[in-house]
């Protein structure tokens, strides 16, 4: 199983980006209305209100082609430009995790024991280039995502009948998808019931593109799509625009807002400079993928409290522990590590953008337990003395442990290694480029005993997070299960609970909570906490109206200029 929607763009946003300094002021938003009209305090901007709103982003999207892009920098741009059959409700908080029909006329009828999804395309839809949308375009989009090796393509190939054969070139189309262009009916046959399949259909990678769109990545000239926005004027690595799709207003899909302003996204890697721009209202929206630098937090709290808030995002940060090898095959040793973990220190290392916690599931995900943490309160410093004693008792004291991490989280690794040293291990560090980090530690051959990891949901469903502990996925080439955890209770619960449709999640919340408590008790991973993201806008943006989607961040369709 593969999941690959990362927040914070950790793969691409190398350290170098974080240290680099970006443009400030009017000039950065070159050629924009915000600039031309004396961008200081919004004077004379009334007439410019129709002009584009500027978003300053810390890192370029990995690709603006919907069937390639996998980072949140990409999906926040593509989810409003490439609607698929389903999407998420444009709402704040947990309401925003609800799947709603987009290009489908309604929710699907699910039959044959949860393996056959039947739905119908809305009537009269057209792409941004004016071409009519056909049911066959859906099948084409899925095929295209597979052909272009979208990082999450296994969600398709492992669930949809015939997708694997198509992927391997044994079939010229996906046998499990049947479409009828005349009636607009779409039928999808699954290999086995998969509860989160509607979430899979809501991926921007399943967003429709016209059949016949070239089967090659088009990051610089993204193909036509259906949605409130269309992407234009892409300057790779520098900027792109989201223009209001002229055909959108006439299509009016319920629940999806019609945007009032075009969006200009400019990529600059310095959060400090970005924050300055938004605080001074010369840019309109701060990129949610990076935390505000400390000085800017203070300034935002002081001068812009009405347009700054911290929003939870469903992303968990943790250190994995190799449960298959010494010393962390010893449960007591693992418990000692969790006991000693200094979560408030990590909170500071994350500039405050971290809510300490001990469970794998973030609070807004169904299944997050209310029971207290088993090894000390997450908001208190770790108990090093007690942990040291536990390590002694476990008989693992004095063993060598190599802690792995990617360069952006060097400070986290330094801190964790110090903690290990303090409780009686001999810790050393391996901090490597983010580009190679996850493939390296995921390969069991590497033998990483411990390492930093952060995981952002692919979709808001506990089963997505539990891939991190799914022992059935372990294989020599690597898996999500970085700590090589094989726990029969976890594996069987994933098997059972994973089949339930997302809509029935609340009915099994108790079982997920029990599983969570079991996981925490076993100390399979040293969870640090859950990330938070900044929501910061210029003074001319209607802050209250701007929706912060728990899945895709600030919802550009709800961005309104005063």
């Amino acid at each position, binding site marked *: 199983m*593969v999941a690959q929607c990362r927040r914070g763009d950790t*793969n691409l946003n190398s350290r170098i980006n974080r240290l*680099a*300094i970006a443009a*400030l002021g009017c000039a950065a938003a070159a050629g924009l209305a915000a600039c031309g009209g004396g961008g200081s305090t919004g004077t004379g901007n009334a007439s410019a209100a129709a002009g584009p709103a500027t978003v300053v982003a810390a890192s370029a999207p990995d690709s603006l082609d919907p069937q390639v892009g996998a980072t949140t920098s990409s999906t926040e741009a593509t989810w409003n430009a490439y609607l698929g059959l389903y999407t998420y409700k444009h709402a704040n908080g947990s309401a925003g995790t609800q799947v709603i029909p987009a290009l489908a006329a309604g929710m699907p009828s699910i039959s044959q024991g949860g393996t056959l999804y039947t739905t119908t395309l809305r009537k009269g839809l057209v792409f941004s280039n004016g071409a009519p949308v056909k049911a066959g375009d859906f099948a084409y989009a899925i095929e295209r995502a597979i052909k272009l*090796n979208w*990082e999450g393509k296994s969600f398709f190939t492992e669930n949809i009948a015939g997708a694997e054969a198509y992927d391997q070139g044994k079939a010229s189309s996906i046998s499990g998808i049947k479409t009828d262009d005349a009636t607009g009916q779409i039928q999808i046959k699954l290999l086995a019931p998969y509860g989160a399949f509607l979430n899979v259909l809501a991926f921007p990678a399943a967003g429709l593109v016209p059949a016949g769109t070239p089967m090659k990545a088009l*990051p610089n000239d993204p193909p036509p799509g259906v949605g409130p926005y269309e992407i234009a004027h892409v300057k790779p690595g520098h900027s792109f625009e989201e223009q209001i799709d002229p055909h959108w207003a006439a299509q009016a899909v319920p629940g999806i807002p019609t945007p009032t302003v075009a969006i200009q996204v400019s990529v600059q*890697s310095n959060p400090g400079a970005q924050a300055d721009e938004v605080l001074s209202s010369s840019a309109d929206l701060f990129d949610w993928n990076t935390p505000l630098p400390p000085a800017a937090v203070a300034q935002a709290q002081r001068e812009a409290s009405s347009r700054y808030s911290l929003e939870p995002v469903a992303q968990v940060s943790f250190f994995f522990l190799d449960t298959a090898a010494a010393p962390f095959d010893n449960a007591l040793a693992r418990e000692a590590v969790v006991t000693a973990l200094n979560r408030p220190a990590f909170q500071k290392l994350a500039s405050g953008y971290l809510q300490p916690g001990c469970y794998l599931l973030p609070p807004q995900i169904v299944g997050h337990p209310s029971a207290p943490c088993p090894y000390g309160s997450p908001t208190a410093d770790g108990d090093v003395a007690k942990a040291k004693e536990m390590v002694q008792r476990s008989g693992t004291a004095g063993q060598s442990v190599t802690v792995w991490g990617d360069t952006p989280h060097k400070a986290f690794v330094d801190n964790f290694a110090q903690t290990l040293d303090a409780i009686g291990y001999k810790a050393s560090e391996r901090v490597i480029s983010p580009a*190679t980090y996850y493939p390296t530690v995921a390969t069991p051959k590497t033998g990483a005993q411990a390492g930093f990891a952060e995981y952002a949901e692919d979709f808001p469903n506990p089963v997505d997070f539990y891939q991190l502990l799914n022992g059935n996925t372990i294989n020599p080439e690597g898996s999500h299960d970085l700590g090589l955890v094989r726990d029969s209770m976890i594996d069987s619960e994933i098997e059972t609970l994973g089949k339930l449709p997302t809509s029935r999640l609340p009915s099994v919340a108790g079982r997920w909570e029990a599983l969570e408590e079991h996981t925490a008790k076993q100390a399979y991973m040293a969870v640090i906490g859950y990330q938070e993201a900044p929501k910061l806008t210029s003074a001319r943006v209607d802050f209250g109206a701007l929706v912060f989607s728990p899945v895709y961040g600030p919802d550009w369709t709800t961005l309104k200029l005063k």
Partner: protein
Amino acid sequence: MRAAHPMLTFAVRRLVAMVLVLFAISVLTFLIFQVIPDGDPALRLAGKFATPQEIKDVRIQWGFNQPIWVQYLRMMEQIFTGKVISYTQQVNVVRQIGEDLPATISLTVGASVLWLIAGVALGVVGALLARRGRVARAADRLLGAVAMTGISMPAFLLGDLLLFYLGFKLHVFPLGGYVPLTEDPVGWLTHMILPWISVTVLFAGFYSRVLRASILDTMGESYVATARAKGISPRRVMVSHVLRNSLLPIVSLWGLDFAAVLGGGALLTETVFNLKGVGQYAAESTQRLDIPPIMVITMLTAFLVVVLSTVTDLVQAALDPRVRLR
């Protein structure tokens, strides 16, 4: 037997040398990344948590299962047809470099003019002072100390300090970034000034020391004494004899440094000021172990260096009959 025209021989030799250097550099770069374990690009291409099947697919799709020399030839073919795609972001590398070039050209052209002027001025003044009285010699020493500090300054430290004091504290200049000249000339200028200053400080000190030494050398040459004895005015001797000859090493230095910075050599400066130029692209690509951009940029730099060194050799030969074209 009559030798071929020296100019022709020179051109042919240089051309052959250039091809060889480019070949060697491309092979070397390719090997560094391909041979070293953990450099497997399939793992990176396949994504954060790929299944074995996905990795296999990528390996076949990108040809990583082929013999290494086939992979090399494939890469070179793609580079020379402009179709080379990067591994991590999967964008056309040539096109990306095209996007990044304006920033790098702005940096190179502006800074190289500044550092040449500053270096020559400082060098000439230093050399003139060195031959005068006590006070002048002290001034020369002071200039020497300034130049030495510039020479010894790490690029990123200078960049950081300029940004901190002139950007963050005094808000005189923007905090880095690049604005295209065509979109906003004023913005372009304000964004370029600090990077220019930074590179100029690094180079000017070096140039001034080379030039000063060169002038002092030349002043000791016999033909300068002869010229003086002939009654030519000291000013004319200085300009037409001393300076003309002393500038020779500077010309060739300038050509090479210009080429190096233009080819993305200013990795650190571009990174610190976030110019998003070729150098920063190179730095980011090395961190991602993304072979195609690294290959293209190293070859671009080497190409420019060879071309510019050929040009400067020609200029030298034109200025100084003693220089043989080899």
